[in-house]
């Protein structure tokens, strides 16, 4: 698969949120303001790219049955620990060296650990046997796709505040149905890539 195809696939066609249902929690929880949606999206993209950077060598040189020490039962434990410590590290690094960025992203950073999109991305990377470069592009574009959808959703929800919504549909139901319509719209992109 070419790098451009991986990018388009992860951003538009098989979008992480709308196709794989990964990262739904921040998608439903945080996406009510465009600013905060953009912030969490950028932080997630950064952590995703960093996760690939670390987990790919870890998997292929240590865990993998073929090229490593055959420790597949450690895969999930190692991945989640890498993500958790990476988030912690990124948080400390940004706080120390980019204090204005930290003020913008600060509170969203710790939440990223429990974003299933990141662990999901690491698992897909292994399942699809991407090379190191392909994995980096995949991680970055998964983050871009996540940022795009969560920002679109935040825009819709900002407008929806003033819509007359029936009482029983207030809150979760109308958000879920909006997400469904968005997923329906994104199905239109499926023609970009031939199967």
């Amino acid at each position: 698969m070419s790098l451009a195809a991986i990018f388009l696939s992860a951003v538009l066609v098989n979008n992480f949120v709308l196709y794989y249902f990964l990262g739904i929690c921040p998608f439903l929880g945080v996406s009510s303001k465009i600013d905060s949606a953009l912030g969490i999206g950028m932080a997630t993209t950064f952590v995703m790219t960093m996760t690939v950077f670390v987990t790919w060598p870890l998997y292929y040189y240590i865990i993998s049955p073929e090229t490593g020490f055959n420790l597949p039962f450690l895969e999930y434990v190692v991945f989640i620990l890498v993500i958790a410590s990476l988030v912690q590290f990124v948080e400390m690094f940004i706080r120390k060296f980019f204090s204005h960025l930290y003020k913008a992203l600060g509170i969203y950073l710790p939440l990223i650990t429990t974003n299933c999109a990141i662990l999901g991305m690491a698992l897909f990377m292994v399942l699809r046997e991407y090379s190191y470069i392909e994995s980096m592009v995949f991680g970055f574009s998964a983050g871009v796709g996540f940022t795009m959808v969560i920002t679109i959703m935040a825009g819709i929800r900002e407008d929806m505040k003033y819509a007359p919504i029936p009482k029983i549909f207030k809150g979760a139901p109308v958000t879920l149905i909006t997400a469904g319509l968005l997923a329906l719209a994104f199905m239109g992109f499926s023609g970009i890539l031939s199967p």
Partner: protein
Amino acid sequence: MLKEFIKGLWKDNPVLRQLLGMCPTLAVTTTALNGMAMGLATTFVVVSAGIVVSLSRKLIPKQVRIPVFTVIIATFVTVVDMVLKAYFPQLSSALGPYVPLIVVNCLILGRQEAFTSKNPIHLAISDTFGMGLGFTFILIVLGSVRELIGAGTWFGTVIFPTGPAGFKPLVIMVLPAGAFITLGLIAALYNLINLKVKGEV
């Protein structure tokens, strides 16, 4: 003890009330069977992790509790993954990467943080078991609706025979968009019932 068990089933239902564990809820419920399998796997993990966390709650330092909980959960998920691969290979490949993703199901971590790390073991078991069953219940409902309308079957049995003159499955129901919309309608029904009980509608 019974109170802790019951609250997960309806009043504090993890999916409809707390919006936790949405990823597996939406992703695997293309059929009722997949939904049930995911629900039971999650129940096993949340109860086992709950027992361990509750027993070791006085040993875990507060500062590192989240990583410790996560490692405990990841261990039980690995167990579930291996058992599924060994004894139910078909189910395991149908659920795919969503089995390992149970690790980041916020429902499980949420229960450890909010309940089992502060309560003795018998309460921890009844709370997590109730939450697990409440989760499984919604997954089966969602899976049933999507499978019935999307394929005309229920747990693999043909309910509406398809054919030239028969039932035409609505394919959108098994696609991602159908999952969002169906769960949205189920959540609206949940609100409606709750408001009816309170007499506000």
